[in-house]
């Protein structure tokens, strides 16, 4: 993924983090370029949140990590001037009033735009005198998004940002993010369980399992590498011979998922299409909870 000669936005080598005997991260290495939207996807306990915490300087770890040229362990304050972070909706302090939150973030962040923040809030039902504890979950995430989108940060980290929200808030969350925030100078890393709703906005994909990265590719590469074929019963043996990643049944036909098999050979077996990330995810994580 990495372009020649330029320093990637995030550069990680051999990241390891132990909690007692278990390894939340087991020698993970990756690079993330500027201007990408990276989905960090994995089952519960795979190490996604630990990786994000390492990037944000919220946890100790072994290995080498540079984020925007900073060491998150030692330069968290400088780093956070360029980085924004939304964990799930519960983290805004419940006692704070909307206007206090705006004044505080505006006061400590050198790159905060009050106009942008107010313009975004004008589209919501949130008013400046409200306390966070009076807001619904959906409104809290709107407020957090308004605070974050008003900051001209280089990196935005989202950890399950839409957890527990209804579909209307989830949709508008990602729409605002794409329409009003994202541009080629910004980078977004997002972890989520709702793979379907981020699938069309991602530029890169990273699957994490048991503290390791099992797949790291751009969405274009994913489209090139993986293919799903709907195979008639008489062809299933031939399909199995090509070592599919996964096989499932729908309406009496078998659907096979292949990694890196030539298109021409697959086309002979049946109808080809692009696999959804959810299907790819399920195939890759087979046996995780077994």
């Amino acid at each position: 993924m990495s372009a020649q000669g330029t320093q990637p936005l995030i550069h990680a080598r051999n990241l390891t983090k132990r909690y007692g005997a278990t390894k939340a991260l087991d020698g993970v290495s990756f690079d993330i370029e500027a201007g990408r939207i990276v989905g960090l996807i994995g089952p519960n306990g795979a190490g996604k949140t630990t990786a994000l915490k390492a990037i944000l300087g919220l946890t100790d770890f072994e290995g080498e990590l540079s984020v925007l040229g900073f060491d998150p362990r030692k330069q968290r304050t400088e780093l956070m001037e360029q980085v924004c972070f939304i964990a799930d909706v519960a983290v805004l302090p419940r006692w704070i009033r909307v206007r206090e939150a705006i004044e505080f973030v505006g006061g400590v962040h050198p790159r905060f735009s009050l106009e942008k923040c107010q313009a975004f809030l004008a589209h919501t039902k949130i008013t400046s005198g409200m306390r966070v504890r009076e807001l619904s979950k959906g409104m809290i995430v709107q407020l957090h998004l308004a605070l974050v989108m008003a900051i001209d940060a280089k990196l935005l980290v989202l950890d399950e940002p839409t957890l527990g929200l209804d579909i209307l808030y989830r949709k508008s969350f990602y729409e605002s993010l794409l329409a009003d925030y994202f541009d080629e100078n910004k980078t977004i890393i997002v972890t989520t369980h709702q793979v379907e709703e981020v699938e069309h906005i991602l530029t890169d994909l990273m699957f994490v399992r048991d503290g390791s990265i099992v797949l790291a590719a751009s969405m274009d590469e994913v489209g090139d590498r993986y293919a799903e074929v709907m195979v008639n019963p008489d062809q299933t043996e031939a399909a199995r011979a090509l070592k599919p990643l996964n096989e499932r049944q729908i309406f009496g036909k078998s659907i096979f998922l292949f990694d890196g098999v030539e298109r021409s050979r697959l086309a002979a077996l049946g109808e080809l299409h692009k696999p959804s990330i959810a299907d790819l995810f399920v195939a890759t994580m087979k046996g995780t909870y077994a």
Partner: protein
Amino acid sequence: MNKLPLLLKREYWEHRGGFLWAPVWITGAILILTVLGIISAEVFRGNAHVQIGFSLDELRRSISAEDIAKAANGLDIVQLVFAGIASVGLFFVTFFYLLGALYDDRRDRSVLFWKSLPISDTATVASKALTAMFVMPVIVLAVATLAYLAFLVLVSVWIGAHGLNPLPAVLGSHPIGMVLRLIAMLPVSALWALPTIGWLLFWSAYVRSKPFLWAVLLPVVALIANAWLGALGAPHFGGELHLAGILGRLLFSVMPASWAGADGISVGREHLSFNMNDDHVVSALDPSHVYGLLATPNLWIGVIAGLLLLAGAVMLRQRRVETSV
């Protein structure tokens, strides 16, 4: 450090109830008691009037210059009482504020929001210590002073309504001098409080649950264990190294003017143990006496211990993010 004023403001926003409203209610309660006292005095006086023919003219004639001086001194004492009672409330508010300061946001995970902003852990811990050292005492002093002024107005109106002139007594008292002396005490009190501030913030940053148990029970258990060892004749702290004194310093130094009664601080104790007949209450709080505390090792050992504990709190704040992990 241009973010510091905003960090202090943040503490005030979160704890407005304890910082502002607690002293307002406490001093307000004294004022209400004053009004109740005036009313019952009126009722009593009414009865007395019927029985013995109480005459205000007589009372007016009998007031001497000495009486006025005593009344003025009494007013000074009342002003101190207002500040003193509000300070007792301040102790409890400060104690629990510090215990929760680095713990509550970890428990409800809002620490993740605060840590997503470009604020160093040192600045965060410093803002909490400075809040306890200066912001809270200044607010309490301001509220107590305003309440005392309200008391003056109330009592003056009452006395005036009976044809007596309250002005000589009020002019003979020292409200401004008293406030200035109380303000002058603040820096000394703040330095004196540092070991407790450090101790409470340290445990607030350390624990995964129940900061009160750690911060309070640990010293108590240490004390009992030490006494037990002593009773068994085993090696223990005794004599010169006074364990109870040390632990008391760790827990109770945030009590405003607690240094006045501390062991070995005879300077403060002598001059603060004024009696009610003392004509010059104000002189007991003379800065030259109060600042004598700066010459005692007790104060400076406490300051060093407090700063070390605060440094520990900063280190813990960097590492311990959520209580669940």
